[in-house]
């Protein structure tokens, strides 16, 4: 049996620990660890579980706010007061590495994991979002990733029964080998019903509930903390298998269990399985546990103690219950036909004892394993790469202006980064729960009705990683600003964010520089928009090593933002309502095509700084738009992002099949005016009866605005030249991605 076998430094290195960490473990234990103990440290001190390479910088993010009920790092997810005695739990998490080698199961279990984080706190998940990054659309590998990942998210989430209300999909060759799959879940509960992830009270029983434990996903956390290589497929047993049916039962049972009042604490089992939940809950409560692994329900024979401890089998929870209430707890799980077995008890000392029947296999201090306790924390080196200054040398004057703008339009609307993501989102149940207010009124953020109140939630995920690549500080500020802008354009007020930080190898000084700058930019923007960071996750090692060349993905700090509509009548759609409405631009256009989709795809230039962005102006623009929506001065609002003004107008025109007739600005190059991506701009439509009022109001603001033109019955005209009819453009736009996939 391997579990008790002796280990050496070589074993430690094979498990991903370095010599210094091995030394620390021997000091903590005062002796040599056995294989089980070493495995425990290796997963708990992996990047994925310990944040050892990132925590120093994450601590600098703003985390406090009057409305924050659970701060980052305190519980399984952040918790925000949303009024009416209700609290919203929300979090985003990556599942990149599993998806790279097994797209379907990788994505499915990602959805399962993030939802468990929400309902383990006692909240019912009511909405999901996801942010997906794939490689070059022409590659077979990309199509394989895309089909598998989308189906995996759909099959799991659809059966689990939580609507997808928003998301984003990007394509870039930096994600060829290593796609990014970030899933966000949002739940709602009564404020006082929160279940904490804590173990306390000597003698209280410790239960494992839900699915049986198998050999799947062993060392998954370690797997997620290493580079993806061409040999990664050999790590397939590190990928878990999902069962949404079990998850659905577990959800209902958990919420019912909470009503019994017998629960002391609960934590789901995700990365690093039993060892992670036992150690984190114990450390939080300042207690320990005595666990008999022989009592854990297993789905396969001959599992060794270390395998049971580290298994990442899905759909399981660890629950600490008040002694004497065992019958009440067991009745709930019997009703839902789920396992519910006592595997140990809470003890007073800071110690975890793992037995297999009567034999002791591991004896470690709980606090030594976790972040903030004994887990190592590192200060990594970083240095500014030469490309950063190179990119700044870009000048629009060196780029020729295309003669035929119609040709550019045709290419842009078929571009998979611009074209409709219908092929993706129609595979997700977006309406279960009967709370998605954006189905019939599309808006920049997904709006979720809170039944029985006047409130609605506004949710969005955003990150343009090309901007972040060009300048991680400014690019990340833009990601936060865009998320806030989407919420404001939908009639909401930004409240808080969760983040998913996807980067390359942290030991690479350039990657680490991108990480540090990005966190700094996020801190600035979150302070400005008063949106504290409530948690999230860090995913390093997103890169590819093929034939010895290591290529990190673009730095991709995905922002998931929560906002609120205090009055759901303020719901604002992006869709033009009727012909004859006047179209206005709020914010200012610049002679700027930097980092635009247009520059990258038409001119094939990737080396440029981020688009024009001024956080003060952004804030002012958002405040003005908040007001004009509140005063009902506009019929639609839609922000300008990828593809520039033209694509924004097109997206506003498509839902009701209307057109638009606009005039460009003589001061600005036409390509920059139509396709440039300068930030802090919002397109609104105004009814002719309220136009004077709108103008009067805008003249009193410190924000530039200008008339663009008007909404037509269906024709698209720019400077008196016809660009065709909306029906034809819509067809191209809607089918771009499915045509690419069929090729």
């Amino acid at each position: 049996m391997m579990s008790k076998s002796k280990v050496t430094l070589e074993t430690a290195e094979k498990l991903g620990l370095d010599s210094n960490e091995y030394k620390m473990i021997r000091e903590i234990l005062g002796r040599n660890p056995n294989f089980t103990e070493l495995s425990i440290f290796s997963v708990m001190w992996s990047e994925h579980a310990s944040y050892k390479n990132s925590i120093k910088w994450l601590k600098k993010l703003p985390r406090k706010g009057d409305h924050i009920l659970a701060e980052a790092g305190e519980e399984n997810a952040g918790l925000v007061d949303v009024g009416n005695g209700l609290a919203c739990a929300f979090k985003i998490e990556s599942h990149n590495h599993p998806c790279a080698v097994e797209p379907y199961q990788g994505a499915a279990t990602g959805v399962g994991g993030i939802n468990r984080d929400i309902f383990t706190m006692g909240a019912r998940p009511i909405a999901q979002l996801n942010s997906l990054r794939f490689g070059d659309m022409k590659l077979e590998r990309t199509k394989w990733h895309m089909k598998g990942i989308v189906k995996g998210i759909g099959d799991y989430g659809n059966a689990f029964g939580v609507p997808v209300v928003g998301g984003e999909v990007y394509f870039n060759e930096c994600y060829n080998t290593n796609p990014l799959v970030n899933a966000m879940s949002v739940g709602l509960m009564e404020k006082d019903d929160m279940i904490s992830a804590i173990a306390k009270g000597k003698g209280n029983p410790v239960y494992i509930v839900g699915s049986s434990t198998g050999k799947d996903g062993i060392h998954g956390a370690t797997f997620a903390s290493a580079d993806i290589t061409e040999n990664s497929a050999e790590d397939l047993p590190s990928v878990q298998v999902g069962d949404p049916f079990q998850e659905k039962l577990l959800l209902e049972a958990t919420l019912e269990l909470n009503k019994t009042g017998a629960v002391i604490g609960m934590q789901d089992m995700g990365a690093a399985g039993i060892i992670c939940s036992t150690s984190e809950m114990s450390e939080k409560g300042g207690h320990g546990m005595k666990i008999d692994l022989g009592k854990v329900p297993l789905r396969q024979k001959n599992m060794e103690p270390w395998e049971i401890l580290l298994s990442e089998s899905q759909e399981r929870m660890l629950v600490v219950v008040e002694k004497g209430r065992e019958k009440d707890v067991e009745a709930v799980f019997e009703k839902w036909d789920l396992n519910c077995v006592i595997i140990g008890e809470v003890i007073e000392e800071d110690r975890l004892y793992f037995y297999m029947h009567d034999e002791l296999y591991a004896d470690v201090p709980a606090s030594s394993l976790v972040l903030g306790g004994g887990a190592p924390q590192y200060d990594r080196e970083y240095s500014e790469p030469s490309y950063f200054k190179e990119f700044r040398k870009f000048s629009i004057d060196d780029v020729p202006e295309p003669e035929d703008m119609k040709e550019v339009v045709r290419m842009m609307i078929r571009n998979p980064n611009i074209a409709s993501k219908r092929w993706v989102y129609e595979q997700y149940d977006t309406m279960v729960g009967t709370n998605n207010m954006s189905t019939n009124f599309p808006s920049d953020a997904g709006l979720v009705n809170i039944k029985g109140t006047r409130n609605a939630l506004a949710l969005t995920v955003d990150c343009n990683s090309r901007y972040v690549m060009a300048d991680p500080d400014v690019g990340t500020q833009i990601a936060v600003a865009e998320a806030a802008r989407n919420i404001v354009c939908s009639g909401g007020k930004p409240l808080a964010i969760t983040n998913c930080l996807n980067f390359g190898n942290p030991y690479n000084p350039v990657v680490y520089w991108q990480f540090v700058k990005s966190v700094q930019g996020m801190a600035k923007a979150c302070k400005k928009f008063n949106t504290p960071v409530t948690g999230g996750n860090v995913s390093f090692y997103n890169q590819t090593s093929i034939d010895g060349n290591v290529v990190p993905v673009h730095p991709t700090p995905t922002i998931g933002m929560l906002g609120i509509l205090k009055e759901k009548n303020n719901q604002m759609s992006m869709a033009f309502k009727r012909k004859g409405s006047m179209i206005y631009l709020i914010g200012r256009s610049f002679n700027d095509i930097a980092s635009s989709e247009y520059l990258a795809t038409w001119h094939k230039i990737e080396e440029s700084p981020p688009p024009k962005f001024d956080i003060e102006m952004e804030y002012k623009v958002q405040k003005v738009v908040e007001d004009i929506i509140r005063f009902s001065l506009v019929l639609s609002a839609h922000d300008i992002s990828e593809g520039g003004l033209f694509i924004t107008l097109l997206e506003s025109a498509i839902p009701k099949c209307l057109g638009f007739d606009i005039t460009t600005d003589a001061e600005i190059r036409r390509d920059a005016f139509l396709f440039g991506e300068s930030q802090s701009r919002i397109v609104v439509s105004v009814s002719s009866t309220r136009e004077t009022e709108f103008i009067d109001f805008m003249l009193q603001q410190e924000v530039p605005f200008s008339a663009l033109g008007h909404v037509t019955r269906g024709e698209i005209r720019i400077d008196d030249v016809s660009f065709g009819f909306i029906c034809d453009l819509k067809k191209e736009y809607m089918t771009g991605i499915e045509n690419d996939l069929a090729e």
Partner: protein
Amino acid sequence: MKFGIVIFPGSNCDHDTVYVLQEILDQEVVELWHKDSDLQDVDAIVLPGGFSYGDYLRSGSIARFSPIMVKVIEFANRGGFVLGICNGFQILCEAGLLPGALLHNSSQKFICKNNYILPDNNESAINLFLAKDKALKVPVAHGEGRYYASEDNLSKMRQNGQILFRYCNEEGMVSELHNPNGSIENIAGVCNESKNVFGMMPHPERASDDELGNTDGRLILESIIRTMEEKKVSFYN
């Protein structure tokens, strides 16, 4: 009226259906747990959407063996109103209460979107009070929704007015272009011969709340309620 909503493990439209019937349509609602065998004197039963027992084998194939279904089948055979929505429709077909079967969508993909349906006639409680020429916007969300029945069955169903709804466009035109799943003859919903058991793939409960901006589905549920109320009045008279 008193509605019973059957809850199987894996049902996920149960809360939505309860909400619409109770809060929006002001009906009395009780939940019927799959392990129970007491129908609690309900006037009508709804089998909601979801993935009963995970639906890993074939949608609805396990649910039909649950204790509550024995009672539901008895209730239906006595003439009680039973409506199956989405997974509920699949279960009713598996249980033999409705003709035909629901196969994997022709695209082999799950599909969720707004779709229009047209009442085929006004012969059943569920479409009695609907305008025959007005398309209703009612969303679909399923992986196995391609309705199939043999030609013999279909011709009987046509003659007997058992085809409830067909997929169409906004103007009510029924064509293959507007068929989301490849259903034979664009069929979106059917009933049994005695017109008391109804099944439909589109979700009327998802189009019933003013706050979501579409209430076309409410007309379908209201049609059943109104028929039942009128029947009850005539019964007592």
